């Protein structure tokens, strides 16, 4: 039971943050790898998959609020898809250990930027 409860709680908490765009995905990745002992490759996949219902649910409300910028969507999505394929390919072909340090640097940078934001 507890094996399910912690992941469920982590999912709900990160889901709320994701809908607010605060970075729920990164939060969940960290909780999984640092506290719940999920293997990094599994954590990557769970996190990606996890974002789909979360973002989908959040988006329904955002669309109703008229908050989506269509011009930005048209500009960003095609290039984003190409880059996402490249990144996923890199992660699949590289040893996870190689990505540890860059991810650490990314976290520090993201943390500092988030801290500095007003």
């Amino acid at each position, binding site marked *: 039971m507890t094996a*399910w409860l912690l*992941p469920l709680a*982590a*999912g*709900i908490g990160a*889901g709320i*943050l*994701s*809908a*607010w*765009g*605060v*970075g729920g*995905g*990164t*939060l969940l*990745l*960290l909780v999984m790898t640092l506290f719940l002992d999920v293997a990094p490759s599994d954590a*990557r*996949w*769970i996190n990606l*998959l*996890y*974002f*789909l219902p*979360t*973002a*989908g649910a*959040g*988006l329904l*409300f*955002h669309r109703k*609020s008229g*908050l*989506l910028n269509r011009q*930005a*969507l*048209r500009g*960003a*999505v095609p*290039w*984003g*898809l190409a*880059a*996402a*394929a*490249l*990144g996923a390919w*890199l*992660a*699949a072909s590289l040893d996870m250990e190689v*990505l540890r*340090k860059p991810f*650490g*640097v990314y*976290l*520090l940078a*993201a*943390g500092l930027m*988030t801290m500095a934001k007003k």
Partner: protein
Amino acid sequence: MKQQFKFGVAGAAAGFVNGAFGGGGGMVLAPMLTLWCGMEQKQALATCVAIILPLCALSAALQMLWGSFDWLSAAPYLIGGGIGGALGGLMFRKVNVLWLRRLFAAFLLYGGVRYLL
């Protein structure tokens, strides 16, 4: 610079981070949309989610093709995510995210140190 070009660069940066690390693309995208593309905060955050969604779908599909996965261990996270996403969407306009963001930033820094050591 042309706005469409900026959106393209922002999307590519987010896609790469998202694909490589399995998440975190939004952390790159949101500040780019507000600081570089000049979008208003709440609109940027909402648009960010809409941009990341197809990127995550593609990265997840590729991981399924190229890597390993376990549906059962993923299930509680997915269910929780759906519940949390709906809750967050309902409360979106009512929250002050400043204190939340600070707490989150501290956690990111902690994670960064753990990964680097």
